[in-house]
Structure formats: structure tokens, C-alpha cells
């Protein structure tokens, strides 16, 4: 199994002719992802890495039976790209674009709910089910198929953790980067719910950071609704209050959303919290070795 994406994923790349879009199309193809079409308005009929380019998502879906879309469109056009994918009936949309205005995402998330489409991101590194398919910008080579589910708000910090896990021989079922923005399509809980039901996933690593209360909500959910063990890591203990640390979502204001508060909440519900990316491996190791 695995969650969200697998060998049945038939992917459309929105913004395929752009620099990012074409580069990662090649990277994803190399990993074995089934990319069935690309979309760039006005460039229909062209080809990128042998992938046919369409003017609209609707046409692409009609011709290729695509079921998933990944978006590399610049921030000011990305909300439209999300709407277009949803209106064409795409049920899983992964948005890599960073820098989308928050109010645009408030509207987009609401609309997607009406349409019954799931959004990962924006400002996400994507989703990978190692050994099956890669829908994102993460380096495929650091992953290994296995039974750890990873869910994270960050990009490179996730790679760091995954890299250490793979070196320690702990493979992954699926790694989901939910994105670092204040308003995102899928929260920790949405992904944890899927991991809980996935037979391949035996344990989960959750990587959070300062800002918002998504980690606190996740801690409660893990405590009440989950049987599978979860190991957490929270970045930003040294972040000063009120300062932005790159991610728009990582704002600490007035004592809520601090790393300390998140760590305390995890600990309150007996969820183990790693001090560093490397320590994640030490905490995962007894869980998986014991459970077989």
C-alpha cells in the first residue's frame, strides 16, 4: 500500500514548460513516475521530455485519464491552476509553488472542499512513495521503501531525517510534505488519519516547526485516535518571538505556537520527541525492531 500516491498515480504537471516544471519532470520520470501530460496555457502540442503538453487541464484529463496533478506555476497564477485542476475532476493536487497570498489559499481550500479534491501544500516539497512513485521535488535517491510514514511541514529538514533513516535501514511507506504556509490544504491530522489506515505503515515520524497549532491538534489526535506509534521532531526552539523564520507560517506570536509549547503537548500525551534529526533514528529503532 502506501498513501496518496503509488504505481496507479497518473500525473499531470501544471507549468511543465517552466524552468522548475521541466527540470522536475525529468527528475520524476527518472524515478519512474507515470507523467501522462503537462499543461501550460498557449503551449499545447509541444512536448517536454516526450510528455505531451496541453493548453488546459480538462483536455489533458480527457485524453490521459490523469488522476493527480502537481503545480509548479508562479505564485500569482497558482490559485487559478489549483481551481482548474479541481474543476477538471483531479482528486489529488500537490502544489509546490511558494509565496501564494494567504487569502487566496483561504478561498482555494474552501472551494476544494466543495469540489471534493484534496490539496497538499502549497509551499510543499511533494509526496513520495519510495519504490513506487515520486510527486515532488525531493531527491529520490535518499529514500528507500519500507514501513515508516513521514509527515512534515518542512523540505530539507525532512530530507535530513529521511536520509538518516535510510542509512539506518529504516525505509518509508510514504513521505508527505504538507507545506510551511499558514493556510494549507492538508494538515498533520489529515495525513495521520491516512497513515493509521495504511497497512504498510507501522510507525510515523512527524516533523513540525514553530507557528500555528497544527502540532498541538495532531498530538491530541494521536492520543485519542491512533494505535500506531509516532515520533515527533519540532524545529525552532531558538526562534525569537515575533520574528519570521523564512516560512510565512513560522511566526511565533504572544506565547502560542512556540516550539516549547508544542514539545510539551507531545510529551503530555506520551509521544516521544527527538532532540535532533539524528535522534529520530534512535527513537524509531526500538519501535520498529520490536514490532518486526
Amino acid at each position, binding site marked *: 500500500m502506501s498513501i496518496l500516491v503509488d504505481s496507479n498515480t497518473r500525473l499531470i504537471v501544471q507549468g511543465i514548460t517552466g524552468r522548475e516544471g521541466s527540470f522536475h519532470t525529468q*527528475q520524476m520520470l527518472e524515478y519512474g513516475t507515470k507523467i501522462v501530460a503537462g499543461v501550460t496555457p498557449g503551449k499545447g502540442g509541444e512536448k517536454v521530455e516526450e510528455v505531451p503538453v496541453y493548453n488546459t487541464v480538462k483536455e489533458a484529463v480527457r485524453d490521459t485519464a490523469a488522476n493527480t496533478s502537481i503545480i509548479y506555476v508562479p*505564485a*500569482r497564477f497558482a490559485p487559478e491552476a489549483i481551481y482548474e485542476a479541481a474543476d477538471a475532476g483531479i482528486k489529488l493536487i500537490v502544489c509546490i509553488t511558494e509565496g501564494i*497570498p*494567504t*487569502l487566496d*489559499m*483561504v*478561498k482555494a*481550500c*474552501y*472551494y476544494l472542499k466543495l469540489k471534493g479534491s484534496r490539496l497538499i501544500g502549497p509551499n510543499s516539497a511533494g509526496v513520495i512513495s519510495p519504490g513506487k512513485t515520486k510527486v515532488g*521535488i525531493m*531527491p529520490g535517491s*535518499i529514500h528507500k521503501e519500507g514501513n515508516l510514514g513521514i509527515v*512534515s*511541514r*518542512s*523540505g*530539507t*529538514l*525532512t*530530507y*535530513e531525517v529521511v*536520509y538518516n533513516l535510510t542509512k539506518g535501514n529504516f525505509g518509508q511507506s510514504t513521505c508527505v510534505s504538507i507545506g*510551511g504556509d*499558514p*493556510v494549507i490544504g492538508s*494538515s498533520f491530522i489529515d495525513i495521520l488519519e491516512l497513515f493509521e489506515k495504511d497497512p504498510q505503515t507501522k510507525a510515523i515520524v512527524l*516533523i513540525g*516547526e*514553530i507557528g*500555528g497549532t*497544527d502540532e498541538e*491538534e495532531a498530538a491530541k489526535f494521536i492520543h485519542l485516535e491512533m494505535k500506531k506509534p509516532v515520533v515527533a*521532531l519540532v*524545529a*525552532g*526552539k*531558538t*526562534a*525569537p518571538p*515575533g*520574528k*519570521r*523564520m*523564512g*516560512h*510565512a*507560517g*513560522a511566526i511565533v*506570536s*504572544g*506565547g*502560542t505556537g512556540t*516550539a516549547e509549547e508544542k514539545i510539551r503537548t507531545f510529551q503530555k500525551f506520551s509521544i516521544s520527541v527527538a*532532540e*535532533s*534529526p*539524528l535522534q529520530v533514528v534512535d527513537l524509531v529503532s526500538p519501535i520498529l525492531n520490536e514490532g518486526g
Partner: protein
Amino acid sequence: MKIYEFQAHEIFSKMGIPSPRGEVAKTPEKVKQIAEKLGRPVAVKAQVLVGGRGKAGGIKLASNPEEAYKVAEKILNFRLKGVLVKRVLVQEALSIKEEYYSGVTIDRAQKRVVVMVSPSGGVDIEEVARTNPQKIFKLYVDPLLGFKSYEANELALALTKDKNLVKGIAKILSGLYRSFEEMDSSLAEINPLVITEEGSLFALDAKIIFDDNALYRHPKIIGLRDLDVEDPLEVRAKEARISYVRLEGNIGCIVNGAGLAMATMDLVKHYGAEPANFLDVGGGASSEQVGKALDIVLSDDKVKAVLVNIFGGITRCDIVAEGLIQAISKREMNLPLVIRLTGTNEEEGRKKLENEKGIFLAATMDEAAKKAMEVVKR
């Protein structure tokens, strides 16, 4: 992006929200003139972009123009929470009967815009939210229809039953929502919203924070930015598309990715040292970007050692290493440099850096943080 209180008052007044009469001054003489013109007791308020200025002594009352002059002397050109006060807002002092709170922001968990009011304004609203959440009334706005006028009425009725006031408060709330929605704000707040003894409503304070990601569609707002008070290094970094925040420690950090950068800082602290900054060079970690990042970090006098932590993913470590060597060779490096490269082709990357002078190589993040601590303590 934050703006000054007086700028926020100007925006609010265009949205039909009344503010006390007042003007901005840069000198005590001008403060005195404004006080004379207002002909009433005044409040002299430091215009700074940091919160909690009242408690820090940045707001003072004066009963006559002479006193206003003296008070202004004690605020202007002094540092308030580390920030130099260049301007004050001189406002007529009001006789206050009630202080309410009103604000519009985004509730991340609900993924909605939320309009909030509370009868307990004027104090730390976060404290009220923690200890007395039933005293905060929230309304989640429909993303497609916006804030409806009956909803504004309902919130106003939660604050007062006085018929003469409900209409005025509802109008203010609608204006507050418009200034939030039309200008892509992340916060629009009036705290306190006051009722005077005479029964009039005023926004005594005004606060707006804009969403940086939406500034491209609001060129007028960009013009309100005050570059003088921003950290010059932070401005330089922004121009180079590098996320940089200056902190108090002495270990300069250069990392790719915001999450990894924060985790690196956390480890520096864990091993007993203090990070001098947060710095995210961005995804690719090209030679040019790393070079610019080095320039910025080295411009901070506090820095005693530099810690570079790069995860080479799609950009392989050997390429990153070559870029680093190039960036270093172009610069005069007098400080110890701890480098930790990991990811694809890390062995090749490390081999390239092994023979470079003044570089300490570390295999793990923990080792790098420990090493950085050792070299500064030495």
C-alpha cells in the same frame, strides 16, 4: 509587512473608522505646536514597529503644550525596546468610558478569516484569550460571500446593548474587515476601541500587518515601508532572495531550507553556544547564493565562527563543495568555518573540501554544532 500606527489610522479613516484628532511630529517643538492647535490634553505616542510600547514607556499623557514638549523630549530619539523613536503621534486625549477589543485575522486551523471582538479591550488580549476565552466573540467569515452586515450587528450586540452604539460599532467592524480583505492583511486590529464619556466611538490604537506574499498587488502599500528602521543586513538579504534574521549569538549559520536552518540553530544552542542568525540560502545552494550568504553573515561583527550546513539533494554535494570553495577563495576569510555537507555524493564533496585551509569538516549536524561551539570557546 508592518506599518506605523499613524499610517494604520489613515487607512482606517478611509474605511470610515473614526480616530482621535492628531498629527505626527519629529521634534518637541512640533509636538508643542500640535498640542496648542488641538487645545486639549494630549497623548504623545512613540511610532515604532514593536509591540508593548505602552508598558515600555512609549505613550505619555500631557495636560498642556509645555508638558507635551517635555514629554516628547523624553520619547523622541530614545530607544524603545531597542528601536530608535524618530516620530511621535500627538493625539487629543479622550475621557474613556469603555475599552473594547476588535480584530480581524486568519485562523489557520479553521482556514478562515475570523472577526473577533471582546468587551475586555485595552489589555493583553492574548492573556484574555487564555484565561477568559468566553469573553472573546468570534465570527468566521464565509470565504466566498465575505463579512455580512447582520454578522457585524451580531458582534456589536455582543459588546453592548446600547442601541445608539450598536450601529456605530457594526460600521467600524465592517470597515475593519474591508481594510483586512481589500489590502490582503494578515492582521487588522483596533485595541482599544473606545467609547468616550460623551458616547462617541474611536479607534484609539490602530494596527495593520500586511501579507508579504500579496504585496505585488498593492504597490501603494509597499511605499509605506520604512527601510531606515529595518536591519540593513536583513534588507540586503531580502534583495539577494535570502531569508535572514539577525539574532544575538556569535555563530553565523548558513543553511539551505528554513526547517533545517531552525533545526541547526536549535542544535547550536543545545551544545551550549548561541546562533548569530537564521539564514536560509534557498533550495539549490549555488556558489553565488552561498557567496552572498557568506558576505551577509561576515558583515555581522558579532560572528566568531561560521557554520555551514547544506543538504545536497538534487544539487549533489560535490557540486555544492565546488561552489563553496569558489565562494571562499573570492573572500578574505579570517574566521573558522565549520562545514557539514550531506546527501547525494557526500563523500566526493568532503574529499574536495578536505585540503582547504581554515575549514573544519563535520560528518553530522551534531558534530558540526559541537565543533562550532569549541572553536568559539577556544
